[in-house]
C-alpha cells in the first residue's frame, strides 16, 4: 500500500526512486526539470497527504475542537466517502447489532431489579483485600472484536504493522513490526507506533465508563511479552474539546520468555497525558470519566514485537493507601503557564 504511494516521487532526496524513475530521460536537463514538474503536479493532484487542512470558523487549526469539527472521527484528512446506497445496505446490519446490544441491556436491567446495589456496597468498603475481577478476556471472536488496532501505516504516516489475533489457548496475541523510518512527506516527523484500543460501547454508540472499577486499587493484567516496554492508557475523553485528548498512562514493562507475568499497576501511579504528552498539572485518574483502555507500543526500537494477553481486570489491595504517586509542580505566581 505504502510502496505504491505516489507522493514519494515528490521528495527530491530519495536517490533510488528518482534515479529509477528518470534514468531513461536523462538526456537534457531542461526537459528533465519540466518532466519533474509535471510529475509533481500529477502527484499532488492525486495524493491527499499534503492537501490543505479544512479551515474552521475560528482560524485554520488542524486540531479538532468543539467549534471546528473536521469530521466525526476528529482526524485530519479522514474522509469516509460513502453513498446513500451503501448506507441503506449497511442499515440492516446496524439494526441487528445495535438491537442486540439494546436487548441485552434491557434484559440485564430487568433481571437485576433489586434493592441491593452491589456498587453501593463496594463504595462503603465491601471490596475485600486480594479481591480481583476479570473484565476482559480474549477467548472468543466477539470479545476480541471489542479491541481495535492501529498503527502509523494505517494513517499513511509510517511503516509499522500490527495485528491482534487469537492464540490456540484462549488468549490474544498483539503482534507486528515497529519501524521508526519516517515517511518523507514533509509533514510527519516521528514514526513507529502500534496500539490496540478497547471500543466497548453500549447501544447507539453510548460510552461505557469504568466507574465500577472505582473501588479497586490496581489494574490487573496477565500478559506474556517480549522484553519491550509497552504503555497502558486509560482514555477519558469527555464532551468538551479540551478533554478529548485526556488519558492516563503508565508503562507496562515485560520480561519476555515463556513465563506469564501478572502485572498489577496501581491506579494511583497513572499520570495525566494529553495526546501522549505528560502534563504539568497532574491529577489522579478518574475512573468515572474513563471509557477506554489502550495498550500502545512506541519504544523507538525497530523490529518485531509480540504481546500475548490473557485477561485484563482489576485487583484490590487494601494496604495500598496511596492516592496519587506524583507530587505536582508549584509554579511561580507570575508565570506564563496560561499562555
Amino acid at each position: 500500500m505504502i510502496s505504491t504511494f505516489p507522493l514519494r516521487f515528490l521528495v527530491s532526496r530519495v536517490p533510488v526512486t528518482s534515479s529509477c524513475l528518470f534514468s531513461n530521460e536523462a538526456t537534457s536537463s531542461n526537459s528533465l526539470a519540466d518532466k519533474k514538474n509535471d510529475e509533481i503536479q500529477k502527484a499532488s493532484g492525486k495524493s491527499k497527504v499534503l492537501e490543505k487542512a479544512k479551515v474552521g470558523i475560528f482560524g485554520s487549526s488542524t486540531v479538532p475542537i468543539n467549534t471546528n469539527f473536521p469530521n466525526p472521527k476528529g482526524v485530519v484528512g479522514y474522509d469516509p466517502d460513502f453513498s446513500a446506497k451503501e448506507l441503506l445496505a449497511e442499515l440492516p446490519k446496524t439494526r441487528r447489532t445495535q438491537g442486540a446490544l439494546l436487548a441485552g441491556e434491557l434484559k440485564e436491567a430487568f433481571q437485576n431489579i433489586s434493592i441491593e446495589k452491589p456498587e453501593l456496597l463496594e463504595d462503603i468498603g465491601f471490596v475485600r483485600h486480594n479481591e480481583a475481577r476479570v473484565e476482559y478476556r480474549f477467548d472468543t471472536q466477539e470479545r476480541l472484536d471489542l479491541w481495535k488496532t492501529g498503527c502509523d501505516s494505517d494513517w499513511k504516516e509510517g511503516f509499522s504493522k500490527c495485528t491482534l489475533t487469537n492464540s490456540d489457548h484462549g488468549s490474544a496475541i498483539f503482534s507486528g513490526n515497529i519501524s521508526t523510518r519516517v515517511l518523507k512527506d514533509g509533514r510527519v516527523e516521528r514514526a513507529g507506533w502500534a496500539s490496540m484500543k478497547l471500543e466497548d460501547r453500549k447501544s447507539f454508540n453510548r460510552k461505557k465508563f469504568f466507574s465500577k472499577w472505582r473501588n479497586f486499587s490496581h489494574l490487573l493484567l496477565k500478559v506474556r511479552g517480549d522484553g519491550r516496554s509497552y504503555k497502558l492508557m486509560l482514555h477519558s475523553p469527555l464532551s468538551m474539546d479540551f478533554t478529548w485528548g485526556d488519558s492516563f498512562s503508565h508503562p507496562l514493562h515485560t520480561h519476555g520468555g515463556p513465563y506469564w507475568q501478572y502485572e498489577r499497576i496501581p491506579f494511583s501511579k497513572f499520570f495525566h497525558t494529553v495526546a501522549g504528552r505528560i502534563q504539568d498539572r497532574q491529577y489522579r485518574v478518574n475512573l468515572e470519566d474513563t471509557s477506554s483502555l489502550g495498550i500502545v507500543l512506541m519504544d523507538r526500537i525497530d523490529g518485531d514485537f509480540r504481546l500475548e494477553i490473557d485477561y485484563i481486570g482489576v485487583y484490590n489491595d487494601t494496604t495500598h493507601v496511596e492516592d496519587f504517586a506524583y507530587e505536582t509542580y508549584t509554579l511561580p505566581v507570575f508565570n506564563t503557564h496560561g499562555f
Partner: protein
Amino acid sequence: MSLISTSRWAMFYQIRCFASASHEQTSLVHVEKQFEAVIPEKRDKDAFMAAIAMFKEKRGRTHVEFINTALKYVKEYGVHKDLDTYKNLLDVFPKGKMIPQTAFQKIFLHYPQQQNCAVKVLDEMEWHGVQPDKEIHDIMVNAFGEWNFATKKVKRMLYWMPKLKHSNKYLDRRHVEGKSLSPSELAGIALKMMSRDPASSISLLKFSDSSDPVSKWLATSQSPSQQRLISELQKGEEIFVDAGRVYVQDHPVAYITLTGTPKSAPTDEFKKEEMDEDYTSWFQEWKKGRVEAKRSMHEQSHETVYALGAMYQNDNSTALRWVDNLQKTNSNLANLRIRVRLDGKLII
C-alpha cells in the same frame, strides 16, 4: 509551529532543486554540505563537534538553520545518544539576547523560531532517551530565560525522565546502556530477565579456544525445582526445544526453551470465596489444596518450562549439543524423547 516551518523549508528546498541548479550557493546548502562532505567512515563525534565549533567560530546568524540541519545528521554521525552533542548544539544559541524583558515578550513566544528549534533539539534528546542534566538546563536558561517556553521543556524533562527511567523492575538498564556487550553477556542478561524463579542459576559454557574466529558458547538457566520436574518425567515422554526472541533494551536476543506438556490439569487462578460453612467434602478440598501448593511456577496452564537457554548460533545441531550439556545435571533426559524444533521460523 515547528512543523509548519520544516515543511515549508522542505517545499522551498524541493522547489529550488527542481527549478534549476544555478542557485546552489546559499548558506543552507552550505551547512548541509559541511555534514555531507565528511566521508561515511569518518562520521563520528569529533567530526560533528568540529562542525559545531566551525559554525560557532564564524558567529553566523543562521543558528536555527544550522541546528535543524545538524539534527538531521545526528544519527548518521552516531551521536544521537550522546548528551555532550546536544549540549554543544544548544550552546550555539547566543546568550542573553533572546531572554524576554517585557511582559509582552514573556506572554507571547519571544523569538519563536529559535525557541521552537530548541524544543526540537530537546525532543530529539527525549526520543533517543538521553537524560538531561543541570548543565543543559543552565544553557537553556542563559539563552532563553528562566521560565520561557523552551526552558520549561527542559524542566519537564528533568522532572519526569528520572522518574520513569528506572520503572522497569525486570531489567536494570545500567547493565546495558552505553556498554558494548558481547552476545554471551547479552544472553546472560536476557536469561536473568526471563527466569522468574529466584532459585534459578545461570551458567555459561565456553568451548572455543583463542584460535577460533567466533566464540562458541552455550548458556543455561535452570532452577532446582525444574531439575526435580525433569527427574519426575516417565521414560519415553516427549519434551520440546523451541526458539524465541526477547529484547534487552534495543538488542534482540534469541533464546531457547525446553518445555513439555503439563502433567496436571490447569488450576483456576481465581478462587470464589463461599461464605457458607460446608464441610462435607473437606478431605477432597484439603487434598486438592496440598496438590496445588506443591505446584511450581514452572508448571503453567498450557506448558511446563524445564529450562531456558541461549546459544551462539540457533540451529538444531547446536541445540542438541545444548541438551547434551544439560544432561550432565539432568540424567533423566537420556530417557526422554527430545524434539528440537529450531530450524524454521522463530516464534516472534
